[in-house]
């Protein structure tokens, strides 16, 4: 089993320095690209690999890049922005890549920036990821010293600066347009699309935003080809994926596995199954803003299409496990508290709807719920859906709630009927 993304990562996550990284085959992709591939060639191989964004939305990366206008002289400078703002609850895959192999991301960023002809790249890093920040800055310094960054990289005539931007901390900064607003030194409020960042992004310039994990695939695709990449997956979707599991499993953790690895295998084999005395009640497959999967669907293949088919989303691929001794109402109250708190405050349904949802759930959890509350919750699921709010934050917030109301309805009713939490 190939694990290209994590091959260099040791269990203690102490990263390779640039010499070690080069010895392990690093910066080959940069040499290859700058040594004779055109930007169009790079976009072509990435497009053919059918790599889909690992930030959660699964948009094809090559197509995203191809939408960037080609004429820098007309548009002004282009930007590449690395979305390293990992804040989706239950998600800890990008931190692994950032801490464990910073050079891999730098190399990937250089190749991607070249493909879209960006002269500046920003790594938008979660403010709380201090070790990652230190390691990235160190790696950038090393790369610059070796001539992989700066003016006229490896004599190719291509110039690139990479800056690390550490976030002030808000979940919505991960949403790509809010991220750009934050990078401009503003309150991270999302922007309307269109215009898409590829045509009017950072400071109004063409900009590509890609997730850390997405980008880390790039050097390997360049080195090994699109077909190699496609073959890594178990099903129709190519590549590997960093999956993870948290909750009451025996061995929580993150693993690089072929795309399409079944959920059951993830939980049973890699996470070691449920802890003794606990049974599985549900799984959020890819972070908090995905819908519950129930035990009967546990065999689902963890790729974009398969998970969508059973009414959820692959999201970040890091699963959160709900056990039978945890109150689902409490879990959802916790979730909606998060979403209400992290709303940017721009649009009405999200800003004012989510706090209401949170309070209803808190009321039900505390045994103060009323039957009518379930109707109001159900209504919000529809009212905060796609298209009704300004960005995907609130619809994301509704995913666990909608599925929770569906699968755990009896638990809700019992809280209301018994006027107390059965788990308390």
């Amino acid at each position, binding site marked *: 089993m190939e694990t290209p993304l994590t091959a260099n990562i040791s269990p203690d996550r102490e990263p390779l320095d640039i010499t070690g990284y080069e010895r392990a085959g690093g910066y080959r992709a940069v040499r290859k690209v700058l040594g004779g591939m055109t930007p169009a060639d790079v976009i072509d191989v990435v497009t053919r690999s059918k790599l889909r964004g690992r930030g959660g939305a699964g948009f094809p990366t090559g197509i995203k890049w191809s939408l960037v206008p080609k004429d820098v002289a007309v548009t002004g400078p282009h930007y590449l922005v690395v979305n390293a703002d990992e804040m989706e609850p239950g998600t800890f895959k990008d931190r692994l890549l950032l801490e464990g192999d910073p050079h891999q991301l730098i190399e990937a960023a250089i190749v991607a920036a070249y493909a879209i002809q960006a002269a500046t790249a920003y790594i938008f890093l979660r403010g709380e990821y201090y070790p990652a920040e230190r390691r990235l800055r160190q790696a950038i310094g090393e790369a610059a010293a070796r001539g992989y960054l700066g003016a006229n990289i490896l004599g190719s005539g291509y110039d690139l600066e990479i800056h690390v931007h550490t976030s002030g901390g*808000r979940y919505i900064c991960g949403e790509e347009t809010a991220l750009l*607003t934050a990078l*401009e030194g503003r*309150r991270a409020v999302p*922007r*309307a699309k*269109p*215009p898409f960042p590829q*045509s*009017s992004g950072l*400071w*109004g310039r063409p900009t590509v935003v890609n997730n850390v994990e997405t980008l880390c695939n790039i050097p390997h695709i360049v080195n090994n080809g699109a077909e190699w990449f496609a073959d890594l997956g178990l099903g129709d979707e190519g590549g590997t994926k960093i999956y993870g599991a948290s909750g009451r499993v025996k061995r929580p953790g993150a693993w690089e596995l072929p795309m399409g690895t079944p959920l059951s295998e993830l939980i049973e084999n890699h996470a070691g199954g449920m802890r003794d005395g606990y049974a599985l009640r549900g799984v959020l497959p890819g972070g908090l803003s995905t819908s519950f999967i129930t035990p009967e669907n546990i065999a689902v293949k963890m790729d974009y299409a398969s998970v969508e088919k059973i009414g959820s989303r692959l999201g970040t691929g890091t699963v959160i496990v709900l056990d039978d001794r945890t109150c689902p109402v409490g879990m959802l109250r916790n979730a909606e508290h998060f979403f*209400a*708190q*992290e*709303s*940017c*405050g*721009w*649009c*009405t*349904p999200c*800003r*004012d*709807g*989510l*706090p*209401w949802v949170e*309070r209803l759930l808190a*009321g039900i959890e505390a045994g103060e719920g009323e039957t*009518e509350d379930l109707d*109001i919750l159900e*209504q919000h699921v529809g*009212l905060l859906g796609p*298209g*009704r*709010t*300004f960005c995907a934050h609130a619809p994301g917030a509704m995913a666990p709630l909608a599925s929770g109301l569906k699968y755990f309805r009896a638990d809700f009713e019992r809280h209301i009927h018994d006027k107390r939490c059965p788990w308390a």
Partner: protein
Amino acid sequence: MSIIHIDGREFTANPQDNLLQVCLSHGFDLPYFCWHPALGSVGACRQCAVRQYANPEDKTGRIVMACMTPATDNTRISIIDPEATGFRANVIEWLMTNHPHDCPVCEEGGECHLQDMTVMTGHTYRRYRFTKRTHRNQYLGPFIKHEMNRCIACYRCVRFYRDYAGGADLDVQASHNNVYFGRDADGVLENPFSGNLVEVCPTGVFTDKTLSAAYNRKWDMRSVPSVCVHCGVGCNTSVSERGGAVRRILNRFNGAVNGYFLCDRGRFGYGFANNPNRERAPAIRPRGGAARKATKAETLAELAKLPGADGTIIGIGSPRASLEANFALRTLVGAEAFYAGVSAPESRCLAIVVAGLQSGNVKTPTLREMEAADAVLVLGEDISNTAPRIALALRQAVRGRSIEIADRLKIAHWQDAAVRTAAPDAHSPLFVVSPAATGLDDIAAATCRAAPDDIARLGAAIRHAIDHTEPAVEGLSEALQALATRIAEALAAAKRPLIVSGCGLGSEAVLHAACAIAEALSNPERVPGLVLAVPECNSLGLALMQSGSIEGAIGAVTSGGAATVIVLENDLYRRAERQAVDALFKAATTIIALDHVPTETMAKADIALPAANFAESDGTLVNGEGRAQRSFQGVFPNDDVQASWMWLRDIAAAQGREFAWQSLDDVVRSLAAAIPAFAKIAQATPPGSFRIAGSRIRTQPHRYSGRTAVDANRTVHEPRAAIAEESPFSNTMEGYYGPMPASLIPFFWAPGWNSGQSLNKFQDEVGGALRGGDPGVRLLEPDGTHAHPTEATPPAAFERSFGRWLVIPRDRLFGSEELSAMAPAIAERIEPPSLSLNPEDARSLNLRSGDAIQAGFGAKLVQLTLTVAPELPSGVATMSAGLPKQDWLALPGWATLSRAEPVP
């Protein structure tokens, strides 16, 4: 044109618009909050949801926000779709979770957009049973009250204040449902357009403190269409009255002039009209004795003894009085004996303005047209202080370049946030050439600070750079020459270049230079815009009467030619040197003054007559654009106060003279016949005899309450409703209210739309002109027969004179205009008179900012506070002009400067 299907019916639409605009333009009641016709769409409130169908077969559709969806051809939407309707009600329900429901004590109540939208969506029942979030309020100065708990977070306030008006001290703080709209700390809102927050805010967060002081509901006030009297822009206003006092001013939309916004001087300056110290009865003052009140009859009997128009009587008019008042005086004393009541230098400047507006291939643009200018030169005028609303228009003009970029990216113009983020630093070129810093410097491509003569020289150099056949300017520094070339290139490259100047510096040379640049820019393909700001609300109207200056009037009396003087709404001490005015008072045997504010001239006059102010009379003003606009009477005094033209008519009648005007229309007719410039004047508004279906237009809403009790402190009988002279208005709640001529709309109100946002119902399309055309008539258009008022040779370069400084007048938004300075709220904002010098000059005098400084203009000594202004050219000082209690000075003028003992 595109075809839009709304609930199965077809409508035409402009594909450049969004669906919300289209729905509102076609009369649909589609609720909204964050969208504003002048601010565009941002999609924040989610109130304007409709269902959109992809094609005729699509039965499912999807919910979209109308304000964020373009009106492309064949768009199919449903407003009445149950899910869209339900969603809209839910949006209100969310907004109401935190709203305090304090309508009974909220000053927005009854004209609240949030109330209207709540009713419109049908949300009535409260399901949210948890606690509400609460906020602390801030002190925001004398104009605006802050009540943050009412906030529904539509973001309009910051979008207007920060994005549209360039304000820096109001912003949004915090996040999620704790967002807070305020300053970083308590304090006066600094932006000169802060008052618009009252109308921009859809609920009661920002309310008018001056209304609050004697509060009334919208339905309990009489309102009339009016025109702002506080500068030469002529913004249209709606004046509200109750109990004989003006209670507030609101913006009255005029698509060509002020659009949706007023400046703070215009909105809060009305307080002078309620001055309790003003004379309300005639006063007769025997020479050397004390004044005594007199009856109207007695006074007129006295006035009947005045000579006819025989040369022994002169009249001094006023640029802050109506055309009709000025013309009545002119008629009474004879055209030759009528003086304009402004200084000779100002008269000369105004003559250039009049000529400039009429000559060559140049146009004086409306404000809407100014907003479309693609290159602007502001030459010598501190437009933010002399004609503030124009500065706001120029701020929009500068956005032109970013809109071009947005066009290239196929971003619709109404996509406000997207347009602003697409080109954060793209500005159309705007250049400011002035002696001191101005309010437009922050958006200027380049600024240049120079003395007036050097400004004129730079202007001449720009003209030469545009048209090399014009004379070059000798002795210009390389840097200035380069700037002239840069400005010339930017203007010449523009499709709609605009030159802005004015009378503010009192420099004829600067005005000539501005006209000359405009002339040089004009060619068969391009009509450049020329804006020449005038000092007061009727400066231009008075200038069109082509009368003598105040110096002429004084000369006519002190030379012994005339002995009787009638002074119309004019404090001579603000217009000429004290000594000269004193001499006039001494030389004249009788001085009759008419005014509505207590002035020194009124106090010293032999006979003082209580005149009506703008709110107490009908009258016509001509703004700097040459647009004649009528304002109407809303306050009906129950004493001897009457319009100046009526006093003058009554004097004529007492004298047994010929002119038998009954109504204002009679005066207007005579004026049109007497002076060709006013031939079109009657088109400004329908005549007093105007009726709709036999009815006058009512100025009180149907819900007006307490009519029988409003005077109960005076009389227990219901007084007869005041009867206006011949007027299109009824002054009561009886009468017509419906589609009406734009100039006669007394207030904006429509079924279901109690707030001012009902304006949508009065426009031909939202944001467009008022139905039937925007009010007013333009009196002056270039007709090709007049030559440009330009001078062949520019003045000599400014030379500093050691030991003396050239003192330049500096207008202030608050204080420099006579009437608004008397309004209590404005008075709070007036800063003490000051004189500014550059740091080196200050150092040479051994003075620092805040020190008391004495300026000697010949024998005249003035004490001021020094402020150091790094940008000022050396040898030049600026001095706040026209502040209350400041004597008139011939400015610009040379003065010696020295340390003064601190002003106590």
